[in-house]
């Protein structure tokens, strides 16, 4: 199968070019057009994005999302690869489930699925899952996300095992006993609203513990790789900075919603703003943004967490946590932070950076590289209309906002996974 995309600019260049893709590989640039020709409408081409943290809800919670809707949404957001979280029903702790998810996703033609598997059986945090078999089945990483790893010894054993397999363990770093019944950031807003707060220390304390576990293994010559998910507080980021200085394999991701929203949004009492970890303060958001600039934050991830509308229309105590916006992540980041971070850094945080975290080959647009790419319209402003989302979760905090940077075309494995051209 051959495609030629014309009228595109490579990121960092003003020159209009064309790229030819053949059998899943970039054949070359500015060759005579072959096969299907697609007009890229002057868009900017970059490697397709990689999402390390998405909840696709299959198996078992397909009323919220399924592989088809979730991976279609990802492709519409410019993603070529998605790591799905294993806190489904049943939990992805069985090699057969990993295989079946990969097999099903392959037939869909949207973004590529790389399922994460549970670190512990049933994500119960006590007994390790069969990590060797899960890796063989195709699991991309191990995580008990959706839950916090309260049992430090089990996490340590998991990190040791994963390290021996060359795999990353990612963690939802939050001390559940400090979080207690908190549903939003603990602070002036939570007290004014009378809502139980989740203190910043719940995250920092857990990050500190997990770093010390890695440090202990590192000292024994076991370089375990810990990835901290959806970092939300300034203090926790400082701890990660210190860990990096110590030479530990500790990486972290930050989500656009923690950069663009604060706990003030909860004054609406709208559960659409209920996320875990919670929206923090403006100072936290600015600190995280600085971390993206200086490299102490490794990559962006969305924590795409779809729920049904009815669930999110419950009160703040009962509504589940999570926002689903994988289709908006790049336009949101580019519109809000295009000037302060720069286009190239944002793209890096969504392409090369997540690949580095995982130890995967770095994406490339050079001839011979896998043909995973996205064409972005950096000029046209469009209003966010949730009704048009591919995701089943057709609501978002940014509904009605005008954003630019929308994907025009996403190619995965040499095939068109999404196109608006």
């Amino acid at each position, binding site marked *: 199968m051959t495609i030629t995309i014309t009228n595109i600019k490579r990121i960092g260049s003003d020159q209009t070019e064309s790229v030819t893709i053949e059998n899943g590989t970039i054949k070359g640039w500015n060759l005579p057009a072959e096969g299907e020709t697609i007009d890229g409408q002057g868009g900017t081409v970059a490697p397709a994005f990689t999402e390390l943290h998405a909840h696709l809800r299959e198996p078992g919670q397909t009323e919220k999302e399924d592989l088809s809707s979730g991976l279609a949404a990802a492709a519409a957001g410019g993603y070529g690869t998605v790591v799905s979280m294993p806190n489904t029903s049943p939990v992805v702790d069985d090699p057969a489930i990993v295989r079946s998810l990969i097999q099903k996703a392959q037939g869909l033609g949207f973004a590529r699925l790389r399922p994460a598997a549970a670190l512990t059986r049933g994500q119960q945090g006590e007994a390790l899952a069969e990590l060797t078999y899960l890796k063989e089945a195709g699991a991309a990483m191990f995580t008990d996300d959706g839950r916090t790893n309260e049992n430090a010894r089990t996490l340590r054993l998991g990190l040791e095992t994963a390290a021996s397999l060359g795999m990353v363990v990612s963690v939802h770093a939050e001390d559940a006993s400090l979080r207690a019944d908190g549903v939003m950031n603990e602070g*002036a807003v939570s007290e004014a609203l009378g809502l139980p707060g989740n203190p910043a220390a719940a995250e920092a304390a857990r990050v500190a513990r997990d770093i010390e576990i890695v440090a202990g293994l590192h000292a024994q010559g076991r370089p375990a790789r810990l990835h901290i998910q959806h970092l939300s507080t300034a203090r926790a980021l400082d701890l990660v900075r210190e860990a990096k200085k110590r030479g530990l394999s500790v990486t972290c991701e930050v989500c656009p919603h923690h950069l663009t929203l604060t706990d003030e949004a909860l004054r609406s009492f709208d559960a659409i703003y209920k996320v875990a970890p919670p929206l923090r303060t403006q100072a936290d958001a600015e600190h995280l943004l600085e971390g993206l600039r200086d490299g102490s934050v490794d990559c962006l991830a969305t924590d795409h967490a779809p729920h049904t509308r009815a669930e999110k229309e419950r009160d703040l105590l*009962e509504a589940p946590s999570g926002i689903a916006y994988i289709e908006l992540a790049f336009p949101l980041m580019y519109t809000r932070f295009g000037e302060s971070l720069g286009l190239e850094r944002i793209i890096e945080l969504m392409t090369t950076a997540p690949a580095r975290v995982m130890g995967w080959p770095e994406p490339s647009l050079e001839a011979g590289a896998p043909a995973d790419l996205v064409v972005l319209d950096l000029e046209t402003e469009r209003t966010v209309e949730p009704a048009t989302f591919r995701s089943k979760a057709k609501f978002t905090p940014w509904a009605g906002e005008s954003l630019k940077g929308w994907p025009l075309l996403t190619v995965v494995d040499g095939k068109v996974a999404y196109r608006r051209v």
Partner: protein
Amino acid sequence: MSAATTTTSARPRHLLDFTEWSPERLNAILDNADTMLQVLDRPVKKVPALQGMTVCTAFFESSTRTRTSFELAARRMSADVMTFAAGASSASKGESLRDTVEVLTQYKVDAYIVRHHAAGAAHLVARYSGKPVINAGDGRRAHPTQALLDAYTIRQEFGSLEGKTVAILGDVRHSRVARSNAELLPKLGAKVVLCGPATLLPAELGTLPGVTLTSDPQAAVRGAHAVMALRLQQERMGGGFLGSLQEYADTYQVNEGLMQEAESGAIVLHPGPMNRDVEISHEAADGPRSRILKQVENGQAIRMSVLYHLLVGRE
């Protein structure tokens, strides 16, 4: 916008908290309660103000006193009252709050009185109902009619709230009454001192205008014109906040001894229900300074006044 900086004189559509309420509007509610008290003293305790209207009490959290007070208030204004007792949680049956409200809307209700265990639930009802909503207590967030009746009771005693000091002692952290009073009383010119064990006294509440915090009960009560004891809400605590009830009672109980620190004419308040001899002594609850039963009577007048203000007295 914070409550303290809100100066709008527009007539609010709902009573969810006091954010949108100006001091003038709040004083109008209190003034009108005088008239309502006179109605309650008549042989026929009924006026036709809300005739033909239907008021729905939607209580998602159990309550007897507040609901009774509201229902009587509505009936004394000649409204029809529809009682919706949702039990512990309609969500446990899978229905969202929005769905519940949209069903109730089909009954052509003119106003909703909402109690819910979750902060902000009354705001959600207001968003979906299209009709005036009175918050009858939402989680730890707000209980505005309770604060209004507290303010009214203090004003009844001293003629004005201007320059008065109100000490509120107890489980501040879990108290919607404390939050609503901390929002309302400074708007009406009073100072509020919140007092309790450090674990039950969120530091952030001390940033509200006109509000100070202390864990020293003697200091809190010193010079106070009104002293309010709050119930220890053990059902909301989940343990760990206190060493023991005895330790708490020995330190923070509102009793005759503590009241010696207050102004000579100081009164004792309690939003009820009381844990006698825990947060308040028998003697303080029943003594000459107590206005606890007066609060109950005033509550009905205040609720009549609020209903009138939201449903009839619109410009």
